[in-house]
């Protein structure tokens, strides 16, 4: 009995056509067509993104917000248009709330550093047991600087947050709840709207790490009512080196600068400096202009897709992959939350994930093997590492079939 239907190119989601937008997918690796299943590490870029960045350097390159010449004008216009694209994409109220950073990691470090300056010894920050190191270590650095206390919301064996334990973690000293929207190691989609509401009942603002969420679902920061939202361009089919911190304007207004330098000032003398308004106060130095333009173009690409159809297709891919992998002897799926993005983390008896990575690579299958920068999650499941097949809307059921066959081969070879 098998109720899972193999996802195919349907009228509503023409995967073959979508794949043609991503030039990199059309290549062979070790004599096999590339099956890129490492999308949680980074996603591939559509042609329009690559061309936009190429065009910028060929035609428009200049520093932003400085010169009055034609190129500076073009570069600034495009850079700020990208900010507007980001604002529209996550439905922020204002572009003043959109801070360009290097990526999710820098976004969280910015909050830990700047918002963190207002925290005192004994103040508390709540994290969860499924965080990426990027949402653990900045808070530990803050703990070292100012003596804040970190509290950790546990997870269940299925890989869901133990929400029953959450109310007990709030105290009069809780200053922030920082958690991931979607787990990079498990694929779990957390009920963040509900969690934000709970936190706000206690007067606690919430930071969401959205790195793994934005590639899979439409995010509306006003509907979520979150206070900070962080994500990376390169996981959203855009370039590396650019990311976004969304911050509620009232909060950002009250926060001190993160780094000092050009761009973030209004007036400088050796006696006193006044800082620029939002969002520039948090953007010291020349930004990654080409990166921002590339991210803007990635968002424009995504906005042209039928997002509902993509979501349905990805969900069918997830069901199909889970079903195919579960049948394989010795294979255990890590992370079986009810609500997941198209990501399957797994371990196989007698086959270490690092060997798995090499063997799958030989079949042209790119998967991630390792601890996924989420060592506490690995510790929880008592595994040193997992293999992770992280799908995007351009992956196919045929690629999943090849993955399943290669996994069986790996077991024959090594077990």
């Amino acid at each position, binding site marked *: 009995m098998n109720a899972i239907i193999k996802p195919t190119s349907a009228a509503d989601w023409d995967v073959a056509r979508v794949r043609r937008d991503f030039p990199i997918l059309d290549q062979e690796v*070790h004599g096999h067509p590339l099956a890129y299943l490492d999308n949680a590490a980074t996603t591939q870029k559509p042609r329009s993104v690559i061309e936009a960045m190429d065009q910028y350097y060929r035609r428009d390159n200049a520093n932003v917000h400085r010169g009055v010449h034609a190129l500076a004008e073009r570069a600034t216009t495009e850079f700020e248009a990208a900010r507007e694209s980001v604002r529209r994409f996550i439905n922020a109220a204002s572009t003043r709330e959109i801070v360009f950073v290097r990526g999710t990691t820098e976004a969280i470090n910015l909050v830990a550093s700047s918002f963190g300056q207002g925290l005192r010894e004994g103040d508390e920050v709540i994290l969860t047991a499924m965080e990426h190191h990027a949402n653990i270590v900045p808070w530990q650095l803050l703990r070292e600087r100012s003596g804040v206390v970190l509290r950790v919301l546990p997870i269940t064996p299925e890989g869901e947050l133990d929400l029953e334990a959450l109310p007990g973690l709030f105290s009069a000293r809780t200053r922030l709840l920082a958690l991931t929207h979607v787990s990079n190691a498990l694929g779990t989609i957390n009920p963040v709207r509900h969690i934000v509401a709970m936190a706000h009942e206690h007067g606690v603002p919430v930071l969401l790490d959205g790195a793994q969420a934005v590639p899979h679902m439409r995010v509306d920061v006003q509907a979520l009512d979150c206070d900070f939202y962080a994500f990376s361009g390169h996981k959203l089919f855009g370039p590396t080196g650019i990311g976004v911190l969304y911050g509620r304007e009232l909060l950002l207004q009250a926060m001190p600068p993160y780094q000092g330098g050009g761009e973030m000032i209004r007036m400088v003398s050796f006696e006193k400096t006044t800082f620029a308004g939002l969002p520039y106060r948090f953007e010291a130095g020349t930004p990654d202009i080409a990166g921002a333009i590339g991210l803007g173009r990635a968002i424009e690409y995504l906005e042209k897709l039928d997002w509902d159809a993509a979501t349905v297709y990805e969900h069918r891919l997830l069901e199909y992959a889970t079903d195919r992998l579960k049948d394989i002897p010795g294979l255990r799926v890590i992370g079986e939350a009810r609500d997941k993005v198209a990501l399957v983390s797994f371990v196989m008896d007698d086959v270490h994930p*690092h060997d798995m990575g090499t*063997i799958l690579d030989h079949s042209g299958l790119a998967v991630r093997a390792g601890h996924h920068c989420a060592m506490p999650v690995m510790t929880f499941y008592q595994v*040193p*590492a997992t293999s992770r097949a992280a799908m995007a809307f351009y992956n196919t059921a045929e690629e999943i079939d090849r993955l399943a066959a290669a996994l069986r081969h790996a077991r024959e*070879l090594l077990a």
Partner: protein
Amino acid sequence: MSELNDLYQELILDHKRHPRNFRDMPDATRAVDGHNPLCGDQLRLFVKVVEGRVEDVSFIGVGCAISMASASMLTEAVKGRAVDEAQRLFADVHDLLTSDDPHTDPAELGNLGALAGVHEYPMRVKCATLCWHTLDTALTSDADSVTTE
């Protein structure tokens, strides 16, 4: 899949499935932890050096097939050797795995020659060399741990 078989040779798979000298050593003269943070491989290598000779060597740990087989083969190769001989062996294995133009002939390394295939997999070289760096640390320094970073 022929290339893959160069990496996962029968001898390596045999050591992976049945690691030799995989045990704790309460009377070791040195115990050193080796850690590969990239993939999480962790092992503890024990050596018992008596009068300049490696009288006994063993290991425990978790890791990929390459790291476990390399450690298992190390114990067989090093046991009973003079310390300076063991260090020369480390140098030869290191040369074989990391040099683009190795002066070491795999055939002269006995079973260890089976590790030569790892050279073609730059991402996996550290898996094979972890135990050897750990041995080198045990024999030449006072450090209690080593990482591949």
